[in-house]
């Protein structure tokens, strides 16, 4: 079961034309088989086309070459849970209303969607903040709202674009730990994008290093470590250093 392919990304290339009509190629022949319930990390520096690739996988961007196929038939954007960079919460909606949006547009009744939203807010530890506006809570809490909103869609595929990038180190560690906990409780396929090597090693079942210009999949790593992983464990450090070395090369 673990090895069944969930998403098949084959020969995906992307280029765009800038204002001066010069073509830039961002992605070149990307091939990824994402396994069912896998925690896949896409690691890459800034501007390595990670977000572009995510937009392609989630169907937000349809202008590309190649194929993205799902093992269980076609999917539209709303059938994938997405956690965006910098939260992308709706500032005029309360925490509760933000999390409820998924159900709202699926035509779920008020009472039912309230219960759903409460369940996911509890999961991310935000019970009691339902009626706050995003402006009134901290960055870490906003991130959790964004995660709850994505989870509330109850998709079996989650895509997260540098979700913890804007957080301070302490909150970041805490969020990584919580995310793994949530994922282990209810397994689903996760594609997690980051530029942080430690985060990648801590979280990933498999890590794909994106790099070059245009970007390709430069390396693949499979951390052979029990969870929860220790940042100070020799195996952790060894893999971290190996990736750091490759990271320099593909820049």
């Amino acid at each position: 079961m673990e090895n069944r392919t969930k998403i098949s990304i084959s020969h995906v290339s992307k280029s765009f034309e800038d204002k001066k009509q010069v073509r830039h190629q961002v992605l070149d022949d990307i091939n990824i088989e994402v396994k069912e319930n896998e925690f896949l990390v896409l690691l890459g520096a800034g501007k390595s086309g990670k977000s572009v690739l995510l937009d392609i996988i989630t169907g937000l961007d349809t202008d590309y070459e190649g194929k993205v196929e799902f093992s269980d038939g076609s999917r539209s954007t709303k059938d994938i849970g997405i956690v965006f960079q910098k939260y992308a919460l709706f500032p005029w909606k309360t925490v509760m209303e933000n999390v409820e949006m998924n159900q709202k547009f699926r035509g779920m009744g008020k009472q039912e969607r309230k219960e759903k939203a409460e369940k996911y807010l509890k999961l991310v530890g935000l019970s009691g903040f339902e009626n706050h506006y995003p402006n009134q809570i901290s960055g870490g809490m906003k991130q959790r709202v964004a995660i709850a909103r994505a989870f509330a869609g109850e998709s079996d595929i989650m895509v997260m674009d540098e979700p913890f990038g804007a957080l301070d180190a302490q909150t970041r560690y805490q969020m990584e730990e919580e995310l793994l906990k949530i994922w282990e409780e209810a397994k689903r396929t996760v594609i997690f994008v980051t530029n942080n090597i430690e985060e990648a090693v801590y979280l990933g079942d498999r890590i794909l290093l994106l790099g070059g210009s245009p970007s390709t999949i430069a390396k693949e790593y499979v951390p052979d470590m029990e969870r929860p992983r220790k940042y100070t464990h020799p195996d952790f450090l060894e893999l971290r250093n190996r990736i750091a070395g490759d990271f320099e090369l593909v820049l």
Partner: protein
Amino acid sequence: MAEKGKKMIYYILPVLSIGILVVLWGVLCVQKPDIMPTPAAVIKKIADITVNPISNATLPVHILVSLGRVLSAFAAACVFGIVLGILMGWYPTFHDIAWPVFEIIRPIPPIAWIPLIILWCGIGETSKVIIVFIGAVVPIVLNTYSGIRQVDPMLFKAAKSVGAGDRATMFEVVLPASLPSIVAGMKTSLSTGWMCVLAAEMVVARQGVGFLIVRGMDSGDSALILSGMVVIGVVSALITALLNRAEVKLCPWRTEQR
């Protein structure tokens, strides 16, 4: 203690600054009270016209007449301006067609329209409302348009990811995101409208605050002129205060963080 003292200052300072203004005014009047009436004379005049009608209307009626003109023009400007702003912000083709025309008409001051409007619509209520409308609609169109253009593209992606269709995206994302900007436009619109109505009334009217000023000029009654001016300032300040309240109610997510 320090906290409380700071709060007190917010109440004391405005009273102080207005007090100084009135004192300066009083000092200036000493020389030529016939062309520059004293504050006391103006207050007396205001009290007088509040009870005794000029041109068949007491001061409150004149204020209400002016306000009525502003509000009907403002209501029309809101509907028309918001719709036009949305269309221009949302449909690039419509923007390309409408924007040049708007840009040419926009810099023409509402007062410059007065002769033409009178020629077309006579000197009745319609003319005044149209003149106010011309002034009031511009800030609403501009702010609605820029509000819609400035919606964070990430929010469109987020809307798509939670399954919002085109309609839902418009009403749940685009409009609320632009609302602070639209409300700011409405504030400017109302104060511009208030300025325009006075200009319109000064040219031709039998009632309204602008008319009072002209009547003061015609009859050499400087106290009446200044009464009209004071009333304009006070009413305008009240409108602004009211709108700030409305803004808090309309955009709670922006104000509750303070």
